[in-house]
């Protein structure tokens, strides 16, 4: 019964367990799939860069499209001054995209369906953007919390709201990705359970699963895109202060 729970697929199992001073540092299935995602992306990009030809082959075309897509995204959403943020956003996008898409293969583990993974990514973005803003603007960075042109009388109302919305960014960023992935995979599993229960009429939920799998692949790409676009918007916010 425990194995049939729709949430069973998110269990973390240690593959190589070892402990360091009471801290559990086991190499688990989540870490394994993170390594797989990073290695796949590295192989794709490095092989495209090493044996690059003027007329690209299939894999080189994929790598170039990925590069061009993220490059346009950074330029359009983060502004022309954000060029040096491109490697960061590219790494973030490709890592999340690889993780989401690998998770769509049956019997694999989706590491982005764990809040701690997405929260770590979101906190990285949050700290990087905040520190960059302070380094670039010094204490003028606090000006971002009060939009220019707003009546001064409203300052005691606007500033707390802006600070709160700034601090809730990593939470909303991480929960969005995590909840999308977890809900999608749970939904597939629930419909899978229906298909088993209904016997011959199980073809109806099976067709539903077929459609949902397509939808989930769309969501996997879309959520990686949304995560990186919001990162770009935050970067623009730190560079231009509104």
């Amino acid at each position, binding site marked *: 019964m425990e194995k049939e*729970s729709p*949430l069973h697929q998110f269990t973390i199992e240690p593959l190589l367990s070892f402990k360091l001073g009471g801290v559990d540092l086991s190499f688990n299935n989540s870490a394994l799939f993170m390594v797989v995602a990073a290695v796949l992306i590295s192989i794709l990009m490095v092989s495209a860069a090493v044996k690059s030809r003027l007329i690209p082959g299939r894999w080189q075309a994929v790598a170039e499209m990925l590069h061009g897509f993220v490059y346009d995204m950074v330029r359009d959403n983060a502004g022309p001054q954000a060029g040096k943020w491109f490697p960061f956003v590219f790494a973030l996008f490709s890592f999340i995209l690889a993780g989401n898409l690998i998770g769509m293969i049956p019997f694999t583990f989706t590491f982005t369906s764990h809040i701690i993974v997405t929260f770590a990514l979101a906190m990285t973005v949050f700290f990087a953007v905040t520190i960059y803003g302070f380094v670039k603007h010094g204490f003028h960075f606090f000006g971002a919390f009060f939009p220019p042109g707003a009546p001064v009388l409203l300052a005691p109302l606007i500033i707390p709201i802006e600070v709160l919305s700034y601090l809730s960014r990593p939470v*909303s960023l991480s*929960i*969005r990705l995590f*909840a*999308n992935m*977890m*809900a999608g995979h*749970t939904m597939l599993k629930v419909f899978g359970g229906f298909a088993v229960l209904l016997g011959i009429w199980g073809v109806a939920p099976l067709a539903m699963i077929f459609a949902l799998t397509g939808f989930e692949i769309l969501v996997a790409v*879309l*959520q990686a*895109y*949304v995560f990186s*676009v919001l990162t770009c918007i935050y970067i623009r916010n730190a560079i231009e202060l509104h």
Partner: protein
Amino acid sequence: MELVTAAKMIGAGIAVLALHGVGIGLGNIFASMVTAVARNPSARDTVFPIGILGFALTEAVALFALLIAFLILFA
């Protein structure tokens, strides 16, 4: 104990009432997108990514509600 289970079920049901707003929001987004493309078909390529971004951001609200429902039911 049965009362707690029943209350959990009702609570999970109430939690997903947020879908009212999400449904209205998603309808609005796609209605605006259709209107925009119908008025100016050449703007399709610029309107579409923004619309999809809006869709993803609104859909996230539905998933927050679903998450709360899951937390009530299973955690």
